[in-house]
């Protein structure tokens, strides 16, 4: 896996799978054989995939737990909605694709700025403290979003804080969020954003900067001794992740008629965390697959929707125990070896107990 050839194959499989999935879904869309619920889920799936990859960049590659990623998504979503509405009402930009692209870039930039502001204090902390402070920032963002009012009058934006009385067309309405949003996100745009995200993250991992980030994760003191600027590279991962989350947010927001700040509660950060954990921490392809499955399944199995969060909770606990407890891990390794042995017809006993560390 870690060898050069292994990495190349891994990247090819990742891009191949995503493209194949897109082509299949697209042809199903064209022939009209896709169910209505699934159709509605296509863009959100792309957004959640990007969110999962973005969080995996922080957790898996940079080795820090961020619990406020929904906050960045929220910043991106509402910035995207405002920019799109501004372009439409203020400058009569009728081209949906152009508006979407600009909105996504703006959403990414806004979330990136938020990432810088939050990252400066947060990245000085470590471990549990860092996690809890990202959570705190996520909540602060939601609190602040509840107080933001934006309207467009002519070609200029009007901003209000805790003050709902603004002239012109209201774009953001405090706790009521955005209403009558023009839905301009498309499945193609979502697919392209996923590809873009994959290119950025996978290329980063296999570059000087990516190696520096992973070195800090593996051994901070050793990395510093090699002359690696810890703050700079932690910041790089964190802000890049925020930018991607913001773009996902813009895609997600412009796919909704209405969107309230309460949508991006702490629960959403946990949802994305579940995608990352189930897909494998540090495994980008895993994040893509688990984000897809966990977004589609609850829609398909609506009867069990009340058990969804319960199952998520159990997933978090079981995966963590299975991958981190030496005893359980070697037991799991034996089990998978046995299954592999069954499939390939070879004896699976040879690789037992490899994981005790």
């Amino acid at each position: 896996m870690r060898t050069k050839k292994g990495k190349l194959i891994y990247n090819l499989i990742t891009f191949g799978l995503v493209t194949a999935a897109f082509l299949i879904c697209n042809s199903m869309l064209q022939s009209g054989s896709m169910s209505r619920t699934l159709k509605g889920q296509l863009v959100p799936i792309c957004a959640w995939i990007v969110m999962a990859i973005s969080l995996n960049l922080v957790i898996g590659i940079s080795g820090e737990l961020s619990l406020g990623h929904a906050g960045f998504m929220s910043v991106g979503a509402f910035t995207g909605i405002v920019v799109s509405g501004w372009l439409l009402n203020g400058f009569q930009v009728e081209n949906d694709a152009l508006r979407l692209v600009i909105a996504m870039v703006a959403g990414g930039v806004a979330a990136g700025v938020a990432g810088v502001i939050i990252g400066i204090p947060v990245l000085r902390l470590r471990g549990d403290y860092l996690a809890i402070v990202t959570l705190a920032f996520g909540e602060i963002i939601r609190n602040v979003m509840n107080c933001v009012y934006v309207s467009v009058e002519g070609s200029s934006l009007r901003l209000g804080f805790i003050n709902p009385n603004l002239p012109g067309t209201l774009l953001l309405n405090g706790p009521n969020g955005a209403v009558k949003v023009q839905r301009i996100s498309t499945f193609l745009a979502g697919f392209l954003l996923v590809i873009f995200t994959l290119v950025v993250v996978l290329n980063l991992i296999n570059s000087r900067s990516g190696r520096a980030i992973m070195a800090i994760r593996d051994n901070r003191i050793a990395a510093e001794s090699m002359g690696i600027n810890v703050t700079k590279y932690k910041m790089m991962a964190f802000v890049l992740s925020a930018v991607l989350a913001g773009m996902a947010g813009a895609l997600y927001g412009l796919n909704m008629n209405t969107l309230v700040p309460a949508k991006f509660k702490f629960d959403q950060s946990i949802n994305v965390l579940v995608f990352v954990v189930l897909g494998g921490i540090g495994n980008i392809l895993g994040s893509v697959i688990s984000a897809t499955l966990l977004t589609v399944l609850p829609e398909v199995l609506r009867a069990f929707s009340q058990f969804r969060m319960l199952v998520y909770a159990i997933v978090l606990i079981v995966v963590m125990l299975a991958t981190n407890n030496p005893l359980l891990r070697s037991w799991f390794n034996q089990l998978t070896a046995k299954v592999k042995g069954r499939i390939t017809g070879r004896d699976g006993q040879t690789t037992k107990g490899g994981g005790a560390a």
Partner: protein
Amino acid sequence: MMFLSNLLGGISLGSIYAIIALGYTMVYGIAKMLNFAHGDVIMVGAYIAFCALQYWNIPPLLAVPLAMLVCTALGVTIEGLAYRPLRQATSLAVLITAIGMSYLLQNLALLIWGANPKNFPSALITLPALSLFGGELKVPGTTIVTILANIVIMIVLTTFTAKTKLGKAMRCVSEDRGAAELMGINVNRTISATFAIGSALAAIAGVLLCSAYPTLMPTTGSMPGIKAFTAAVFGGIGSIPGAMVGGILLGIIEILGKAYISTELGDAIVFAVLILVLLVRPTGLLGKPVHEKV
């Protein structure tokens, strides 16, 4: 007078935070982990007390011990099933497990008691309100009970850790787990005992919280839980008096912030305090600095 009444409200809320923060601070000091599910143990405690009073017709004086008993068992079970197997794991893995546990408790509560908020009965604390300054300042009975409970708990707990054998064992384990083990201290049992005490306190906090704010939901515990962790960090994690000071200060900041700055931004103010404290004095008001060994 308005200010005084707000201040009292702050101290009362802060006392609840302080009691919850004790659970965080003891567990963090000894097991070096952030027990994210602690806030949800509060919620379970409140639900048990609620059921005891509302459905099972248990006298109020017995309802609280019952809730404490259930929470103690719950805390010890959580520790044994989910946290103990991860003693050697990274803090990232432990924290994710704890978050999973928090969601497990919330969603189990959702299945058992439903999503509709329950109105917590006021029968538990029947102390009449105290009138001061010729009736200008009314101090509710719950406020008095909460503050008193906080003081009693602090005194008992401080004596406990200083004087008893188990208390000393706890301090040993929090200083150096390996050395404590070599001295013949059963580390697992000591950590279990810490979870037991923290969870019992959580039950008390749950009852007090819901007596003051009677809306009971599966998510009731999560926000106060996070805020109480903030309080524990504020006061200096691992320190019992720190939890008290941090909790009360945080309660006052929250109530005054909501009253005089902005109701919408109340939570944001509390979290801003957390961030400021961690940046300016990461070891908290009463905490000790730690060195990393190279």
